[in-house]
């Protein structure tokens, strides 16, 4: 069965609005995805029917809110195939998840230790490790990419050593769309006794994740990139690693006992979740996952593959257009530059035609420098985009070029 995209679009109210008097063509999905009515309803319903603080009230609503909130954790745990629910830590997003882990790693690193990241990092998975290394005296090693934007796996293996304490890499690159062979690379890193983290911000948007199959220690993602609300994210960590992970924020919820001079910490997941959590966000994210799960993963993949294939074909037929990143394995992203046109001009003239893309460095300044481009224009696709929209993108690019010529 193939995906009924028209039926999917019906469920996204925002896709029916106009911008600059034109129907919206939303191709900025790598930045954030739109929300289906099911997610909007879950948020409204929570605040209309159920709002209360969790884990502490001795009343009806608090019990119900707690039940829904913990059920959301279970939904996420199942979706990513965590072996235990306590492995799912709520965060505000990918960035916080990586910071939580980097903060713990920094406390354990010593001079001579090495941390491995890649040249294709989003700043969230670079600055965190760079600063953790600076604080601890460890060395940051950066695995290069190949000219096509794929990871240089030979160099990855070459840079791994007995000194490698930690490896963090993206599942999928937000700037290039490259899918990394994370399972194979994780196995190689684990063979050297390194801990492995996957930045799953883009990975989670393009198909079900199986953290046990990947074999990593940590996997972080953001709810807003998978049709859920902003302000909620997930850090998954393997129980054995997470259970005595250095505490992060301290305060309510995460303690066991407190005296004026001392405190002891609670159990997972609470010990890493200080303060009142984003209850509505967690429930909204679970609604997003439940919404997504009704579709067949293979159908989604086939649809997204077709969108990118058509976009790539049209891009290759466009004179003076250079695709940035054409790894054999990629998804969701067409990054490009045009001769004689700054990405900002392209983005602006597309916007006027109702087409939303992103332009700039995509929070990956070192990568742009490495690729020797000032930035790119990036169209990124999701489940609700159509082949017609891909055609409209290229009509839009044609018009922009004419105006800039």
């Amino acid at each position, binding site marked *: 069965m193939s995906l009924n995209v028209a039926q999917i679009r019906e469920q996204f109210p925002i896709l029916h609005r106009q911008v*600059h008097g034109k129907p919206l063509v939303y191709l900025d999905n790598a930045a954030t995805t739109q929300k289906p009515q099911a997610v909007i309803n879950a948020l409204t319903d929570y605040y209309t029917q159920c709002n209360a603080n969790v884990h502490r009230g001795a009343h009806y609503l608090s019990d119900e809110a707690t039940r829904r909130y913990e059920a959301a954790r279970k939904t996420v745990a199942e979706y990513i195939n965590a072996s235990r629910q306590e492995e799912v830590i709520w965060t505000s997003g990918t960035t916080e998840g990586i910071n939580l882990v980097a903060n713990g790693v920094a406390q354990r690193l010593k001079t001579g230790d090495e941390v491995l990241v890649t040249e294709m990092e989003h700043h969230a998975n670079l600055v965190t490790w760079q600063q953790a290394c600076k604080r601890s005296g460890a060395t940051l090693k950066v695995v290069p990419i190949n000219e096509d934007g794929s990871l240089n796996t030979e160099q990855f293996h070459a840079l791994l050593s007995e000194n490698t304490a930690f490896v963090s890499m993206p599942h999928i690159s937000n700037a290039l769309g490259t899918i990394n062979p994370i399972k194979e690379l994780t196995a190689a890193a684990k063979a050297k006794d390194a801990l492995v983290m996957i930045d799953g911000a883009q990975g989670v948007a393009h198909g079900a994740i199986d953290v046990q199959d990947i074999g990593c220690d940590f996997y972080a993602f953001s709810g807003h990139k998978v049709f859920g609300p902003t302000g909620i994210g997930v850090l998954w960590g393997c129980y054995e690693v997470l259970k005595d992970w250095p505490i992060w924020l301290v305060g309510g919820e995460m303690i066991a006992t407190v005296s004026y001079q001392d405190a002891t910490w609670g159990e997972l997941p609470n010990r890493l979740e200080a303060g009142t959590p984003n209850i509505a966000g967690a429930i909204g994210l679970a609604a997003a996952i439940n919404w997504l799960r009704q579709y067949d993963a293979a159908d989604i993949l086939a649809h997204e593959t077709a969108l990118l294939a058509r976009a790539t074909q049209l891009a290759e037929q466009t004179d003076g257009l250079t695709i940035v990143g054409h790894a054999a394995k990629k998804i969701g992203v067409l990054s490009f530059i045009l001769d004689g*046109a*700054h*990405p*900002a*001009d392209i*983005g*602006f*003239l597309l916007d*006027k035609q109702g087409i939303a893309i992103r*332009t*700039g460095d995509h929070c990956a300044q070192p990568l742009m420098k490495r690729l020797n481009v*000032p*930035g790119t224009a990036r169209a990124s696709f999701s489940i609700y985009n159509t082949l017609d929209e891909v055609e409209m993108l290229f009509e839009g690019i044609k*018009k922009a070029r004419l*105006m*800039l010529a």
Partner: protein
Amino acid sequence: MNLPSTDEIIDDLEFLDDWEQRYQYIIDLGKALPGLPESQHKEEYLVRGCQSNVWLISEEKDGKLLLHVDSDAVIVQGLLTLVMAAYHNKTPEQILAFDIDHYFAQLDLENHITPTRGNGLRAIVGKIQQLAKQSQA
């Protein structure tokens, strides 16, 4: 460069009502901007925007401020030309008396000059006004 006056620009844009014609006009202005040689694209002149960069060099001559600007994006170059029409070769008093927000509103381009727009235009305007204040002092 023969800069149009602000009044000419206001007149011109008033006649262009669809967005394509308006932005074509701005793009054409941008292309006519002499800009700066690559060698002058120095860090000290740079005003970083999150989408595009802008460079500004100024000098004072006969009590007037001479401004030289450039951007890596042509639409921003065009918008800079609109700013130059207001500020280039003017006395500090003229610069400080000019209501730039009202001018951009008249051009129906006020969204370009809001602080949230990452094109560096607002920062340039602020910088020019500051230069004018300094040379008055």
